[in-house]
């Protein structure tokens, strides 16, 4: 960190330090904003080599996913490393990891909206898309873990010839409802946000096929004032519904563990610390994706260093909450006087999985502390690297929670050891592929920044200057002659 600061870093530092509340930079008006974002969809030539490389990697790994799912369906869940006593393994680790990543999207789009954090307008669309794709990746795991995903509909309550009904007292069933509701509501929220932008692109494109498709997707949106009025009510209430929903989803995920009696799981701190961890991991993923994308597509004046800085600060804050969670977990374990709880603390520190535990403390607890320094937050490379470290740390967290407790419960005779198999890793890589694949398809075919909300932000920041200059053609006469009638 002792090296000379580059010109760009100096500029970034100044931006971060400045008290200005401006989140749109450069020469801008509505037309420029539309062109800058809309052309990513309408002008397909804008997608160059970086897009192809990223998309290709995603595509290759997606094929790895298809192969591993195919093999799993052919052979059964035995191809994973799970067995008694560790009946849950990488599948649930990855499920929790992915669903946590999704949470930042809803936090940005809903909670920051309710908190009147208008700077979110430039990042919410992308973060919501990330939520959707992350929840898709997450949903695959429990589905495949059932062993027979083709009868996964048995999870839902419906009258059937088996005469059986789901057990509503089980957190696993709560999960079914929480995750499917979350997926549905996130998709609706995302779509509602997209409609005015789709209408804009429909009006702008010169390609008839594209206009036809966008015309259907935009539902005939025409921007009527009364429509906007109801739209805003609906959007705000959706945000109000999504905010507690997102908290409930990871709370219920943590209930999968906390409601059981396994030492290390049976603890009341799980819900809040799972939610904080989810937001933490999610912001890390937003930064991992946004830092390169804003550079590739010249979006640095819409997703400014100030956005990046504030996201880094939220990441640091939630990271501290998570770290506090780790400390309390140890304290409660040791203070409980319960020998099984004390043993699990000892096991985490010195047991067979100690490398994962200390790795987690390093990645989630210690390493992110460098974000206290403005110099680090102004340096996108350092920030990107720290976000990656946090993502690894959050994966390790779930790794430590799941096998460590499962393989070291009450009876030493039932102890074991868990190692993820080749196919566990293949499938994890595969879901990363699916996620990358979808993210880059989205980047190419839908506006990745909410255009009308950025205009709203621009209007708030610049007022009248948000409009183009007086280079318009003079007042057009009406078709009918204007008569000077009384």
């Amino acid at each position, binding site marked *: 960190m002792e090296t000379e600061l580059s010109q760009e870093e100096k500029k970034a530092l100044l931006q971060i330090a400045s008290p200005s509340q401006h989140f749109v930079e450069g020469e801008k008006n509505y037309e420029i904003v539309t062109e800058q974002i809309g052309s990513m969809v309408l002008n397909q030539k804008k997608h160059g080599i970086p897009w192809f490389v990223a998309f290709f990697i995603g595509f290759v790994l997606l094929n790895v996913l298809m192969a591993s799912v195919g093999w799993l369906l052919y052979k059964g869940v035995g191809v994973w490393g799970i067995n008694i006593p560790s009946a849950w393994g990488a599948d649930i680790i990855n499920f929790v990891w992915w669903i946590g990543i999704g949470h930042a999207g809803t936090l940005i789009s809903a909670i920051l909206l309710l908190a009147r954090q208008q700077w979110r307008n430039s990042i919410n669309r992308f973060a919501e898309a990330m939520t959707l794709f992350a929840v898709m990746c997450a949903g695959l795991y429990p589905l495949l873990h059932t062993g027979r995903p083709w009868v996964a509909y048995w999870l839902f309550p419906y009258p059937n010839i088996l005469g059986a009904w789901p057990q*509503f007292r089980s957190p696993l069933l*709560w999960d079914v409802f929480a995750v499917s509701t979350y997926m549905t509501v996130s998709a609706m929220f995302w779509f509602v946000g997209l409609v005015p932008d789709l209408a804009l692109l429909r009006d702008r494109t010169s390609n008839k096929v594209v206009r036809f498709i966008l015309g259907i997707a935009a539902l005939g949106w025409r921007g009527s004032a009364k429509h906007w009025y109801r*739209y805003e*009510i609906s959007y705000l209430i959706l945000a109000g519904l999504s905010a507690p929903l997102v908290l409930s989803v990871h709370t219920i995920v943590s*209930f999968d563990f906390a409601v059981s009696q396994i030492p290390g799981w049976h603890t009341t701190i799980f819900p809040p610390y799972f939610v904080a961890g989810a937001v933490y991991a999610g912001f890390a993923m937003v930064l991992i994706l946004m830092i390169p994308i804003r550079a590739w597509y010249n979006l640095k004046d819409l997703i400014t260093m100030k956005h990046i800085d504030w996201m880094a600060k939220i990441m640091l804050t939630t990271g501290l909450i998570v770290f506090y969670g780790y400390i309390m977990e140890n304290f409660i374990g040791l203070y409980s006087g319960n020998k099984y709880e004390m043993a699990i603390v000892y096991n985490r520190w010195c047991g067979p999985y100690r490398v994962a535990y200390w790795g987690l403390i390093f990645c989630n607890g210690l390493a992110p502390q460098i974000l206290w320094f403005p110099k680090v937050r102004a340096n996108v490379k350092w920030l990107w690297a720290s976000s990656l470290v946090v993502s690894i740390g959050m994966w390790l967290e779930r790794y430590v929670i799941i096998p460590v407790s499962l393989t070291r419960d009450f009876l030493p005779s039932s102890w074991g050891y868990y190692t993820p198999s080749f196919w566990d890793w293949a499938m994890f890589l595969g879901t990363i592929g699916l996620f990358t694949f979808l993210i880059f398809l989205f980047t190419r075919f839908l506006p990745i920044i909410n255009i009308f909300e950025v205009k709203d932000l621009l209007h708030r920041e610049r007022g009248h200057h948000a409009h183009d200059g007086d280079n318009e053609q003079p007042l057009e006469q009406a078709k009918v002659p204007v008569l000077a009638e009384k």
Partner: protein
Amino acid sequence: MASTIYGMVAEFKSESQILNAAKKTKAEGYNRVEAYTPLPVHGLAEIIGLDIKDTLLPWIIFLAGVAGLVGGFGMEWWVSVIEYPLNVGGRPLLSWVQFIPVAYECTILAAAGAAVVGMFALNGLPRPHHPIFNAKRFERASNDRFFLCIEAADAKFDSKRTAAFLSTLDALSVSEVED
């Protein structure tokens, strides 16, 4: 079929201009007025005139939420107590505390669904075509122009006088819209 007139439309450059124009139009006594803007302009719908239909949405969402709650909890109760009672160590069948998460998710799902479906339905969408799309340069209504339309259905509408009135409002253009 002979072309009929849907209304007279004026094009404006900014939020403040259209707010101003809408106020003047209402003051002039026009009632069938609608504005089309690329982004929500606060206060515009109120000026143009809200009716009872516009304030219905929150109630629809609330009632859907209540229905989701009652429906979700009712389903859990019916399944666990009536249809498929499982005696687990003599614990109560109506263990309502453990029914909260699912009932809660059902509430959110129903309310959110109503928020989306209700909003589009009250707006009369999806509707692929609308006469306003015939307006000149209307493709900019979703980008950077603000349109105000006085509909021909207005009692006071008269193409000459309405056009004359609109052109006093500092509009970029005034034109007729065919139905």
